[in-house]
């Protein structure tokens, strides 16, 4: 119990920016789904089992079009292909996390990944419990918000447009932190340059998969150089 309490204390501060973003986006999700005639239970169901922000917004559209599970399957694989990168990055860190491992994998969203790949549990805090609680807290924010959004409908009194920028801000700050923690900047530069080039060539809706392929190719070519310098 004490192990979890110290891990909770250590994990919570890291999740605050995600809390802000998830509470807002989760509410928006719940409201949109509710406005399409779905009871809030559906929003909760999706936030528990799908738990992937952008895909859940796509799902709202799929639910209101013709029933086509095969297309849904393919769209999901394409939209969420970036998770493959996260999994490969976390293979080592998730080693030896035992019974917590399946949940750590199931809850590996963009935001949870961004925290866990750039943060180590502080001295004296159990690493598996720390990672577990970061993952769990984030999902609690997300599920709670979609529940509230689905329940409340549209009782918003203040203008919140632009608040979703909190996610962009989080990723930029983590990018800077990662940049400063490393002498080797080739992987970071590769990620940005290749993605921008692919965005220009393939457009905003189709650039992630080409980016992933090209990033992998470039990093493979650079392997000898990077490993020699390390």
């Amino acid at each position, binding site marked *: 119990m004490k192990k979890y309490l110290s891990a909770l204390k250590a994990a919570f501060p890291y999740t605050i920016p995600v809390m802000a973003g998830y509470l807002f986006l989760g509410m928006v999700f719940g409201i949109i789904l509710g406005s399409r005639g779905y009871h809030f239970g559906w929003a909760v169901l999706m936030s528990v089992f799908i738990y992937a922000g952008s895909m859940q917004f796509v799902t709202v559209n799929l639910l*209101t079009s013709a029933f086509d599970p095969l297309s849904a399957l393919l769209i999901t694989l394409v939209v969420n292909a970036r998770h493959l990168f*996260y999994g490969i990055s976390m293979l080592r860190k998730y080693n030896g996390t035992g019974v917590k491992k399946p949940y750590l*994998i199931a809850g590996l969203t963009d935001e949870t990944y961004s925290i866990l*790949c750039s943060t180590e549990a502080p001295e004296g805090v159990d690493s598996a419990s720390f990672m577990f609680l970061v993952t769990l807290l984030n999902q609690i924010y997300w599920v709670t918000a979609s529940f509230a959004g689905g329940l409340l409908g549209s009782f918003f009194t203040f203008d919140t*447009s632009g608040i979703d920028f909190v996610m*962009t*801000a989080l990723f930029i700050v983590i990018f800077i932190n990662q940049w400063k923690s490393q002498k080797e900047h080739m992987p970071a530069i590769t990620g940005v340059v290749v993605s921008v080039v692919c965005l220009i060539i393939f457009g905003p809706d189709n650039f992630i998969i080409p980016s992933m392929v090209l990033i992998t190719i470039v990093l493979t070519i650079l392997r000898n150089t990077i490993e020699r310098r390390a």
Partner: protein
Amino acid sequence: MAMTNTQALILIAVIATATQLTRALPFILFPENKKTPGYILYLGKVLPYAAMGMLVVYCLKNVSLTSSPFGIPDAVAVLCIVALHLWKKNTLLSIGVGTAVYMLLVQLVFK
């Protein structure tokens, strides 16, 4: 509602399973009790930096430089975050101020 509850449930189950597959696949292919190839370990070491760069671009993908507001709110907010973070090195401060600046710009200046 365009479909029956059963159809909606099936659709959600399919999407949830496919999402979880994208998360679990690396762990299924490279289990703990087998030696992971050196190449994959190398990718695991360098990908976090590349993936975070890709994620930043992904967040900004819908910014249009050719139509109003020409990406100005985004550019100003990003510069604020970078400058503030290099100066104060305070994660929550950088994120909070950057987001506030962006919200003010899109709500009051570039309506």
